[in-house]
């Protein structure tokens, strides 16, 4: 059967995140963006909503089961508040979710319960690389087998909270596969470089990470000595990224809509001009259509459909385009005011450009 209705439980979670997104994330987004920094209390409050904890089974200290559909619903709401803040709250998921999806029993036991039971802690992951042709399935960073372990070499960028992270998953090419390796903070050869300077998400601390002959034990390869499949992790990232693109777009569309209903031009509200009203109609249609695409992809992942990866890819590609289209028009609806930083649409336009290229900034 088809259904477009979240369960009651999902709806409750959404309402909770939505309140936080509007009252906290959105309210503090401007200051955080200008300061290049998110208040610790803000992140902790988001963490206490318990979204990630609820996607981890009781056996590992959580209180629920992971669902891709719930994940995209939640991620949309976080990004609706603020992308940088949402990504910060979800950063520990960059570490926990791959372990949940692909980790060995030992890795799950070791890492998940203490993470889930504690307050927000900077656990992270390093996937993205500083190259034009960055491709999660064809990395430049290498892992080479060496005796009882592996040696990692390469450069990563946009690693959230790398400077303070307790541990991170580093993705590298091993043979012709992308594999994850758990690297603790003081591993020899792991060097956290400068903070990356970016087009958007100013408030989120992102770092360059250099791997210079970092040794990893076999037991610290994600999934253990046998390794793991990368597709489920990549799908989880694509879906979460796509959902955040939708959330950000929805925020931008609604803001532009409300603004247009207030703004007077030529004796009417600017929203009463078809040139503006039609843009808004198209923005709303785009969001609705791509959200359907995303939900279907998430449902495919949850139902183990073989074509799930393809559809997660299509959803992210579509959502990234949608975010650009919608945020660009949101700025246009505000005219000159859209270009001014006091109005959030310019921030959304900057934040909205990364979705197509930055796979791996979030995994839930």
């Amino acid at each position, binding site marked *: 059967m088809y*259904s*477009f209705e979240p369960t009651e439980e999902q709806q409750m979670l959404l309402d909770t995140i939505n309140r936080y997104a509007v009252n906290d994330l959105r309210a503090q987004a401007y200051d955080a963006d200008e300061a290049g920094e998110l208040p610790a209390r803000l992140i902790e409050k988001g963490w206490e909503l318990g979204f990630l904890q609820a996607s981890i089974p009781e056996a590992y200290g959580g209180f629920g089961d992971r669902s891709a559909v719930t994940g995209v619903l939640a991620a949309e709401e976080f990004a609706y508040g603020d992308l940088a803040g949402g990504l910060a709250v979800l950063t520990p998921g960059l570490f926990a979710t791959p372990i949940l999806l692909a980790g060995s029993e030992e890795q799950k036991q070791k890492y998940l319960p203490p993470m889930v039971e504690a307050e927000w802690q900077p656990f992270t992951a390093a996937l993205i690389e500083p190259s*034009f042709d960055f491709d999660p399935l064809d990395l430049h960073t290498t892992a080479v087998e060496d005796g009882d372990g592996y040696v990692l070499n390469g450069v990563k960028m946009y690693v959230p909270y790398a400077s303070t992270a307790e541990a991170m998953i580093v993705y590298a090419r091993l043979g012709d596969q992308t594999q994850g390796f758990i690297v603790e903070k003081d591993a020899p050869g792991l060097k956290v470089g400068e903070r990356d300077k970016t087009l958007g998400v100013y408030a989120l601390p992102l770092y360059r990470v250099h791997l210079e002959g970092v040794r990893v034990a076999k037991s610290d390869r994600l999934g253990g000595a046998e390794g793991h499949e990368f597709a489920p992790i990549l799908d989880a990232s694509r879906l979460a990224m796509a959902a955040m693109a939708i959330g950000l777009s929805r925020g931008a569309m609604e803001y532009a809509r409300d603004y247009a*209903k207030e703004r007077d031009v030529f004796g009417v509200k600017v929203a009463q001009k078809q040139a503006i009203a039609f843009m808004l109609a198209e923005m709303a249609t785009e969001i609705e259509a791509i959200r359907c*695409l995303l939900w279907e992809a998430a*449902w495919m992942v949850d139902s183990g459909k073989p074509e799930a990866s393809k559809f997660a890819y299509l959803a992210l590609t579509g959502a990234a*385009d949608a975010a650009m289209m919608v945020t660009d028009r949101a700025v246009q609806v505000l005219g000159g005011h859209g270009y001014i930083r006091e109005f959030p649409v310019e921030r959304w336009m900057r934040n909205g450009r990364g979705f197509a290229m930055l796979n791996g900034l979030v995994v839930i």
Partner: protein
Amino acid sequence: MIEFEIPKPIAMTNNALETVAINMMRPKSRYFDEHEHEIPWDYINFMHMAMRQTGAGSLAPEEKKKKTDEQGKERPRIGYQTLAFMLEMLSWGDTGMYLVTPGGGLGAAAVEAAGSPEQKEKFLARFKGEKPAFGAMAMTEAQAGSDTSAIRATAVLDKETNEWVLNGEKIFVTAGHKALCESDGLVVVWATIDPTAGRAGMRAFVVTGSTPGVQVTKLEHKLGIRASDTASIVLQDARVPFDHILGSAEVIKDPTTKGFKGAMATFDATRPLVSAMAVGVARAALEFLKEKLAEEGVEIRYGLPRTKLTNIEREVIDMEILLRSAWLLVIKAVWMADNRKPNSMEASMSKVRAGDIVTKITQRVVELMGPMGFSRDYLVEKWFRDAKISDIYEGTGQINRLIVARQVLGYSGRELR
């Protein structure tokens, strides 16, 4: 719970419909495109027989009692979803031919929505008879297209005979000729019973081929969907019995009669079905392109960043996104209709999206096929022509944008014209 599993009964019918599309429609597509105004009787007779047996195909699923399964649990309604799948598949076959599928079309849908039980009995029985019959809906006039309130056709009650006397000229009536001249069908004609009352005075009347004073005066020659007849109908003192009015005959006292609103509500339900047809055409074109590429050994590599994709891969991937998202929006709109959720916004969104993507996709595919795209050796050029109508009838792309915008903005028709 959010889910996207095609309901089993739909999946089963879909297979049968695909066979019809492949065997009865595609082989005849070119012929009926090149022989405008000829009638594909083989297809029509076959569909009539098949639909009589299965009861499928009416554009307005009848108000049946809710079905229950063995445990007494209600089974979800899927009537409009079933139709959306059917129309998508048959339009994938040939959307012009789909439009001549017998069974009542928009005319019957209006009767279903606005007629009394007696009227439904009286008017709809003809569609279940021995011979195929067609239904049509005539709103548009030379001076009144998007602006339906500008219609001038009139209906005046002759108190002596208790008949409505209709006068006016309707244009662009899909299947109008088949309804009146080629079968014992009906046309639902919109006319005003009070020219001073604007929309509140507009009513729909059932007119049949045997109605005196009704004449089909013209069949249009078109860019595409040539298998579908587009008729002009002149009404000259055409007389129909009093009970041929759908909804209340009173105007001023009750300007928002249930009948009128009911008929309008049908269009919220039928609009996503027109979107489904558009999606079918778009899918035909995109699948054809992918087949040809595969024959040439071109493989589409999903999962790569854009930087690494070839142009053709990029094009195909982008078109797949457009197609799939448009289709799911259609599904959402009909799912809402089935579940009695107000879907006016989603219905129009689906129409905006489907009209956009079918024109875009067919246009791109013609180009991407190179010189062969321009050739009548293939159906691609035909789909490109067929596609454009989706952005025009059942509300143009602009009219549907207006409807969406009003919903998004919370504006009335007066606040946003």
